[in-house]
């Protein structure tokens, strides 16, 4: 997991999800929000149950929309990047 605006790189190890949910990107997002995100402004990352507008999710260097978005099942060795859209110029 990597966030390039102030890059934070994490290696996350998942086993099978205990609640029987698939270990997909939606699960990863919720998990990051619940376990790793220290800033209380959760709406800066997740809004209405999904990654908020303005955050690009990249799965192995591809926009997640090419990979099935939050339903994408995580594979071992996958690189998932959350990156803020920039607007300055």
């Amino acid at each position, binding site marked *: 997991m990597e966030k*390039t605006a102030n890059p934070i790189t994490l290696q996350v190890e998942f086993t099978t999800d205990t609640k029987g949910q698939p270990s997909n990107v939606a699960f990863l997002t919720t998990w990051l929000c619940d376990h790793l995100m220290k800033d*209380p402004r959760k709406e800066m990352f997740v809004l209405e149950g999904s990654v908020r507008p303005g955050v690009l999710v*990249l799965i192995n260097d591809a*926009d997640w*929309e*090419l990979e099935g978005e939050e339903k994408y099942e995580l594979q071992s060795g996958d690189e998932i990047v959350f990156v803020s859209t920039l*607007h*300055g*110029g």
Partner: protein
Amino acid sequence: MDDLTEASNHIHTLRAQIAATETQLGTLKLQLQQAEHPSLPPTTEPLSPPQTGIPAEWTNATLPALQENVQRDIAQRLRQERGLEDAPTIQAASQRRRWPLATHEYSRYGRQLIMPEIGLRGQLHLKNARVLIVGLGGLGCPAAAYLAGAGVGTLGLVDGDTVEESNLHRQLAHATARVGWNKAESAKAYLSSLNGNVRYDVYKCHLRPESAVEYFGDYDVVLDCTDHPTSRYLISDACVLAGKPLVSASALKTEGQLIVLNNPPAPPGDATGGPCYRCIFPKPPPAASVLSCGEGGILGPVVGVMGVLQALEAIKIITAAKPMATDDPVKPTMLMFSAYSNPQFRSVRMRARRAGCAICSSEATLTAQSLTSGSLDYVAFCGAQASVDIVAPEQRVSATTFSRLPMGDNGVLIDVRDETQFGICALRESVNVPWTGSAERWVQSARDVGVDFEDGRQMFTVCRFGNDSQLAARAITETLPSTINGASAKNVRVKHIEGGFEAWRKEVDPTWPDY
């Protein structure tokens, strides 16, 4: 014997030079033909018997010359073909028209002209191209400079802002002497001295939905060098409606992003076109998450890199050997640059056009009429960032009033700016506790550096503009009582300084750094 050998060598050398020169001429002629008639297939089949090895179109011109006295004729012919003024005949006049670029243009653009990616054909495309640059800031300045340098025929420059001193570390087309000028005018002054062969159209205004599509219609490529989602959606929409490719870039702090949109620029509903900004970002980000360069900071070379890359992409579009084939699937990519990461560059595959896109799909709900009528409110769509206004009136103090208060044992000033800003300038005896977004964590951080909220002294919070200081003041009043045994909110006395250090500079200390 030696004389004979020497003469023979000389003849051989001359023949080789003639052959080489004629091959080059043939290639140039071919490039010209393709440039003038891009739809025609290149002429490869000689029209007359190919024994000479000379392109057919040159046979008539070169064969008679070869049959004449070689030594006398070559020098004369080469002079004529260079278009020298003293070339004497009508024939020479027609030779001059053979050169599609002016003499000085061959030397000015020679270094890119000799590259196969450009060549004469590409240079002519550049000369005929019209490029519109929206925003002459950190992206627009380098983009405009390289496009002017490359010999783009017409550059449209759109900006309604004026040059400020804080622009100059990165917006290199402007100048200290032109602070206060309109940015498009200032850029034109710089660009004209760089390359006076380019025509510069200056628009001293912000782009408006009512006129954007009409403006864009006059140009071949548009560069989005602006700094806000509002203008980014507008420019993308207008590019789709006007059918123009869009080179879009952005930068903040140490990072940049670049994407070429609506390329090829197929009409709305045509899935073979490149995606637009709305395909990639259908919903705008929350206004609170949008940071400007003034708020977040920007390193000059970072935004410079992105602007230079925009010029590069524009040149690639203009000089493309053939229009993008519509049967090739579009493979859009976004280039991400992160100056302090390794690797610094990352190219990411992006989606094609979105089936339900509001502007470029067959289900589009936005039309040229939506823009020209002014019914589309881009500011409302992206949302304006409300200034923070959360503390009670009795918890506010003006900079002027604060400056007259005795401090020392009577009060504590907590500066909630980040450490870097605190390091630039700070008030004596103030304590730096950067605001991080979490009330609990901030209160704890303050305690960790020795702030005693319970000693009965008056607390003050201050920041750059007076927003975060309110959040910190509220954190103290709302978070603290629950964490102090037996203490009530009334025992905690906190005020924030209205308008922050900006107000401090304006009202109290004009020497306070205006960074």
